[in-house]
């Protein structure tokens, strides 16, 4: 889902940074100092989990785990994703620094939306099947919404990118399903062992 350096136009880069700065400011304002340590450690676990190579058939993929990140961190997801992407850019040269704003927005906004749309329903759901279904929907929604935002950024850069955007969306469908399954199992596990982490 990372957009590489050199692809987006100046206006799109500015729009990405504006959205990210707004989200980061909102996140930092609504995160009390007591929660910062927890946010940092949770963010670091997701950072490590996203580095694990999951082999699916002949190919392999890296999961983003944005949905559980959004459900657990809530408002703090924007700063957490920004820091994770900054460290990825610096340590592994994934993404980039100029395009960091657009990438942060494309990944953190769907995670925040997941928290708003599915967060409460997942916390309050009682049956295992219902919780798993909601979590699966949350996982797939986050990936597809992220791909849609990345596609919008590409479309804002040049209308002719729309053909490539369609390919991008199709390529994200299997990843969305896998993310949905992992999110469902992860949420069920957390709900059984540490339910307070989801509230």
């Amino acid at each position, binding site marked *: 889902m990372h957009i590489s350096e050199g692809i987006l136009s100046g206006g799109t*880069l500015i729009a990405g940074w504006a959205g990210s700065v707004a989200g980061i400011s909102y996140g930092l304002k609504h995160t009390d100092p007591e929660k*910062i340590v927890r946010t*940092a450690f949770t963010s670091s*676990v997701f950072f490590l989990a996203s580095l*694990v190579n999951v082999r699916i058939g002949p190919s392999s993929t890296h999961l983003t785990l944005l949905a559980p990140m959004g459900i657990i961190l809530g408002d703090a997801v924007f700063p957490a994703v920004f820091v994770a992407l900054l*460290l990825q850019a610096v340590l592994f040269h994934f993404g980039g*620094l100029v395009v960091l704003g657009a990438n942060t927005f494309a990944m953190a906004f769907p995670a925040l939306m997941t928290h708003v749309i599915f967060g409460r329903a997942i916390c309050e759901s009682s049956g295992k099947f219902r919780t798993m279904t909601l979590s699966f929907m949350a996982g797939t929604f986050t990936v597809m919404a992220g791909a849609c935002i990345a596609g919008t950024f590409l479309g804002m850069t040049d209308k*002719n990118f729309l*053909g490539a955007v369609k390919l991008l969306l199709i390529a994200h469908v299997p990843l969305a399903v896998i993310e949905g399954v992992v999110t469902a199992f*992860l949420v069920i596990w957390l709900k059984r062992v540490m339910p307070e982490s989801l509230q």
Partner: protein
Amino acid sequence: MSQNAYTLEFSPTTAATETRRNPATTLICAVSYALAVSVSDSWPALLLASILPAVILAKRFPLHALAKLNLLNAVMILTLALTWPEFSGGLVMGTVIALRVNMICVVFMSMVYPLGTGGIYEALCVLGMPEKMRVLIILTLRGIFTMHERFETALISVRLRAPNLKGMMKLRVFASVTASVLVQSALRSENVMRAVKCRGGFGGFSQYRHEGFNSRDVLFMAGFMVYASCVALLNYA
């Protein structure tokens, strides 16, 4: 140790610090160059922009670092050529993007990434990053190194117990490992928070005063800004 010996021992370091370029200067210059390149799509502007990466490439730049990047670029050019309304238009656009990506990556890899996490953190502090964000970056970095060992141990344990995991079970086990490390991280973060409180809270957590810009930094930045502006102006001329 006498006062003279102490002074002699530390004088070379002091001298090095005085002549060191501020990391914020490097970051500002590289980002302004990358911005100018990102908005450029005319060949004269790209030609002017390629002077800096060409100079860097001439000075022992590890070319193998660009090999993987250009493999991805080849896929990107082919994708654009096939999905663009006209094949030739997509090919040109793909080539322009690949050129931009290479130029930006060469500049970042030779100027910004060697600063390391510490240098970039320092640069962001000089540029006025909020206190909460500073704490978040420091603790996330610390968390990565702390939790990495636990994550690795859990994965090794899974590989030993079930080396041939496949399909849905593999995803289930991966989710369980991540969730168990999450629980461990929550417990660990409680201990860290308790330790922070014992030391008097976050007040003074990142109070180190970072160096400002000296005259060399200002000159370097001014030169870079002129170069980046020329690239951008040539694009719109």
